[in-house]
């Protein structure tokens, strides 16, 4: 069986227009059937296939071209290059909640969504009650959508999608809406939709959702496919990429730069014995801080798990420690964490430079380290404990 959706070599250029004159110029070019003089390449050479009943996750940073790709798939915009093929019973592709008009009531929006899918009025009649029942938002259905909470909008969107059954459901960051319990419901809805043979194109920043709901994922970076494959692999590669990127972004500030900006800046950070440390060993964090005014700065050290959960933080002023001056406005710090209680896993140490009063945070530097060990305990740290009396 051929794919329900086949995207081949798709690219999209957006006209780059800054001035009013540029707009007039663009209109003139378009009328003559020419491409815009200056373009921004939003998407280039993207390929993927989607089988009926399959689900594809699209990930990438903001501005990577995710929304552009979804719009091309939905037919909202035409690709500048390449082709999109839709096979089989060609139905509409619906972006969840997208067809909603904020001024319309819920009921009117149901009709609009049905019309967008090409349903004649007599068919809408039967479906309306079903959608209202599914959405279950009570009297709000007679209110304009703009008065809805974002959760209610999504709920109505799911109801429309569930009952009207578009061939492909496109959702762009829907799961970022609402509280945790609502998100759980959304996921349950999507899972049921997939179980019923629905086809899903999901765009999300949450790797958890991507891995849970999609078998295959596409990672877009600067408009190009960075990786395409099983969602777990792609999601892990994406997370690893971000870890590295964050780490490289937290390198020490150059001395000249720090002096010019007049900020207290961390100049170096060393981990001893290294970035791999056995559970229960001593970990020493040391380095130098630059003080632009020659007064001894304060230093705050924080430990967090790789996902950002804070574990512990302590500053020099809390322990009434004053840093030693080294040479030329540089102060040394050294902190040893005794018999490291952290359980095996990946952690981040973050050192902040503060002013001598320990009031204002300036520069910070990050390093990641791994705690090794064989243990079946859960959590972040090993708490001193005793069983029995």
């Amino acid at each position: 069986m051929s794919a329900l959706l086949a995207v081949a070599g798709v690219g999209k250029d957006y006209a780059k227009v800054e001035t009013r004159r540029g707009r007039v110029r663009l209109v003139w070019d378009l009328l003559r059937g020419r491409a815009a003089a200056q373009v921004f390449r939003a998407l280039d050479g993207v390929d993927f296939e989607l089988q009926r009943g399959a689900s594809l996750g699209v990930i990438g940073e903001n501005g990577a071209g995710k929304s552009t790709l979804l719009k091309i798939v939905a037919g909202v915009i035409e690709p500048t290059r390449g082709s999109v093929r839709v096979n089989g019973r060609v139905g509409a592709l619906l972006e969840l909640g997208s067809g909603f008009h904020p001024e319309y009531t819920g009921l009117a929006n149901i009709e609009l969504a049905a019309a967008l899918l090409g349903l004649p009025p007599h068919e809408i009649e039967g479906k309306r009650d079903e959608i209202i029942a599914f959405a279950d938002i009570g009297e709000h259905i007679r209110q304009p959508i703009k008065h809805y909470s974002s959760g209610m909008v999504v709920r109505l969107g799911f109801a429309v999608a569930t009952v009207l059954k578009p061939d492909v459901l496109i959702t762009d960051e829907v799961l970022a809406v609402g509280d945790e319990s609502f998100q759980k419901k959304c996921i349950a809805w999507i899972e049921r939709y997939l179980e019923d043979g629905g086809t899903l194109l999901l765009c999300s920043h949450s790797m958890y959702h991507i891995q849970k709901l999609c078998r295959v994922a596409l990672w877009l970076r600067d408009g190009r496919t960075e990786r395409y494959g099983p969602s777990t692999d792609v999601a892990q590669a994406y997370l690893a990429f971000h870890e590295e990127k964050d780490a490289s972004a937290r390198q020490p500030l150059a001395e000249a730069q720090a002096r010019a900006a007049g900020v207290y800046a961390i100049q170096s950070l060393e981990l001893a014995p290294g970035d791999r440390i056995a559970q229960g060993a001593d970990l020493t964090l040391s380095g130098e801080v630059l003080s632009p005014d020659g007064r001894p700065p304060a230093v705050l050290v924080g430990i967090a798990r790789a996902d950002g959960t804070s574990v512990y933080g302590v500053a020099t002023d809390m322990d009434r420690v004053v840093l030693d001056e080294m040479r030329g406005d540089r102060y040394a710090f050294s902190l040893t964490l005794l018999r490291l209680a952290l359980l095996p896993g990946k952690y981040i140490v973050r050192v902040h430079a503060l002013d001598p009063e320990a009031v204002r945070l300036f520069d910070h530097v990050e390093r990641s380290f791994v705690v090794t060990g064989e243990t079946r305990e859960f959590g972040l740290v090993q708490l001193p404990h005793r069983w029995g009396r």
Partner: protein
Amino acid sequence: MSDSTSVAAGTASLVAAGSAGRRNRALLRNFFGREIHTRYLGSITGLAWALLHPLALLAVYHFVFTTIFRAGGFQGHSFLLFVAVALWPWLAAQEALQRATVSLAGYAGLIRKVAFPHELVVYASVAATLALQFAGYLAVLLVLALVGEPVRFEGLILAIPLWLVMALAVLGLSLGLAALQVFIRDVEQVLMPTLMILMYLTPILYPLALVPEYLRPWVAANPFGWLVGRLRDCLLDGRLGLEWGDAVALAGALALFFGGRWVFRRLSPQFEDFL
């Protein structure tokens, strides 16, 4: 798989050709209903205002022209009837153009997110305005007849096709203006005074015969002036014969429509980025 659609660069719709027509009709119906509803039925005074505004204008013009200027020579008709027959189509065309020019902005959310022919928005906007204004036109003719003005209702046989020719031309202009407005926001600003000036250059409030001889060909060349003249022919004088000018006008309206649609279709793929 028999019915597969390929969307290469150039073609837009993902909906198969057969169901596309049905879907577009459903959409147009929906947009049209929505336009009528939000414009006139949304507020209690909305519908009344649609009729009151031209009536008030008519009353003011009547006062200024017959009481203050004591103008005469309305081809043997009362000023009220003479102006009402022409003023309504003008106000209808004006309102349709003004609303349609900015209509796409109201559907920005939809245009950015859903694939559908953007023309439908303009069609619905123009259709809603003209339908309501035509209803108002009939109502006013009826009222004028009831107060004893000699309205020739058999003239509607010609007046209705004349309105349709006007609708075609207005639709074409609206398509072009609405598309341009997306890129160049000044269109809306320029349109208003332009229409105002055009109104006074069109023999709506005065007969062509009052225009000085040397200016008359210029004023007569105004297509709207032609429409107004023809409406007076049939509704005031009961002259129902067709003229060569009618064919020229129809051809002109068709050219405007297809020209406007051409401009619209050239520009519409970029709407999503500029709305």
